[in-house]
């Protein structure tokens, strides 16, 4: 079943130089394996297209049922150099909430 990421997770994003980071947190511990399967670096990079010029790294925090995504060269130069309105990537986490994921019905039982 296709659904937006927002169904199973929430996010917060920010900057470190020209790297945007997005924390992705499962709403329930049982959703964490779905995050691991669906929120892959390749899919995240494809989702943001030309907004992210470099690679996407993914780190796992099983203790928090969360992922940390690093979007390299993701802020148009970053900090004060970037000409973007959202030069600090504050809204990129929200953008990711609309990414479509594929989940089986059975996986959403709490």
């Amino acid at each position, binding site marked *: 079943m296709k659904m937006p990421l927002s169904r199973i997770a929430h996010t917060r994003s920010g900057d470190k130089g020209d790297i945007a980071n997005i924390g992705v947190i499962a709403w329930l511990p049982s959703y964490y394996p779905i995050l691991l399967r669906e929120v892959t670096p390749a899919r995240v990079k494809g989702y943001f297209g*030309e907004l992210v010029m470099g690679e996407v790294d993914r*780190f796992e925090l099983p203790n928090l049922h969360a992922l940390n995504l690093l979007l390299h060269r993701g802020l148009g130069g*970053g900090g004060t150099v970037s000409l973007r*309105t959202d030069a600090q990537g504050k809204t990129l986490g929200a953008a990711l909430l609309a990414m479509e994921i594929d989940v089986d019905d059975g996986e959403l039982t709490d």
Partner: protein
Amino acid sequence: MIRIANGQGFWGDWLEAPVRLVDGGPIDYLTLDYLAEVTMSILQKQRQADPQLGFARDFPPLIGRIAKKLQERRIKVVANAGGVNPVACARAVRKAAPGLKVAVVLGDDVLDRIDDFLGKGFEMRNIDTGEPLATIRDRILSANVYIGAFPLAEALATGADVVICGRCADAALVLAPMIHRFGWTPDDWDKLASGIVAGHIIECGAQCSGGNCQVDWQNMPDFANIGYPIVEAEPDGGFVVTKHPDTGGRIDSHGVKEQLLYEIGDPRQYITPDVVADFTSIQLEDTGPDRVRGFGVRGGARPPMLKASISYDAGWKASGTLVYSWPQAVEKARVADRITRQRLEQLGLHFDEIHSEYFGVNACHGPAARPVHDPPEVQVRISVRGSDKRAVDRFTREMIPLVLTGPPGGTGYGEGRPEVRQIVAYWPALIPRGEIRTRVEVVE
């Protein structure tokens, strides 16, 4: 147990927050984080213009406003308000609050040691790009090393009511009172890491207590009176994040998780001057309304290198906007952008980058934005940057003429010609720890 509250997440944060933290219930320490990465360069310029400036000017009047209560309630303040001139900041605080003892921590400012470092063979390559510092040597505006919590704890040990530093690791402001009161040593890695994690959670102020939080934000209690965070720290490293009663916002483990992940890199190695914290070891537990307990944090040895934050002049930029209304608002805005680019090219002007966004269409999310159809209005924002200030200045003349020379229905130019702004860029680099000597001074 000691209570450490953070009342400022950046310079420009809510002015009432620290006052409310002092008034709203018991706290032992009040921390205030004023310094963003580029703040130092702004302060450096202010100091060049006036040797008595170069610090967070909001800070001395704030301390004046709460001085009596700080004394009555024996609350100590730890703040990086010193910027590039901690001693002048301390004198201003003494003037605003003559009854308080003020100590400063010095040694973070390495602007006049850059050539010495380069001469010793430290290339100070940009951590992100790998370029050597020599490529921007003549454009450096400020240079500061992130210092840790131990010198701040040493300053608290003088009995100071107010401890002022310049550049320090943000979370060190919160760790310092724990080191001071609990007697933690540099090899108490797990405890130090725990203190750093607590500091990371509260260093952005209300961003861990309901602000900028996606968790059921529509039902967030009383945003207008949002409570800033307080850490209740234990000598064994355990802590609880909470806020004063009868304040707005919310503290729960989901919101705290959002803040734990905010602006971090590899979670297994959160590097600070005092310890390397492993964020994959953190355990959280909701123990009551607006109470989250953190425990189990592990840490490793402090790094041999310290991070320096160097700012430099990186050219000029300007952004101009125009609004186009229905019908064909998006099409009109895109034509306006094309015309502008063509005119700039015909003028023979060169820029490092020209960037266009359409508010209401894609300004925040770019190609990932959800599609919109036939909106009632759109704002186009065109920005340029480059090393030639005259070219950037000429660009600022090209937006408003579009109203009479481009597509129909252009408006929203009331604020006039855009401003040309200097770009002060940030250069993160590493310096061997042994090069940096901090010292504490009590300012009479």
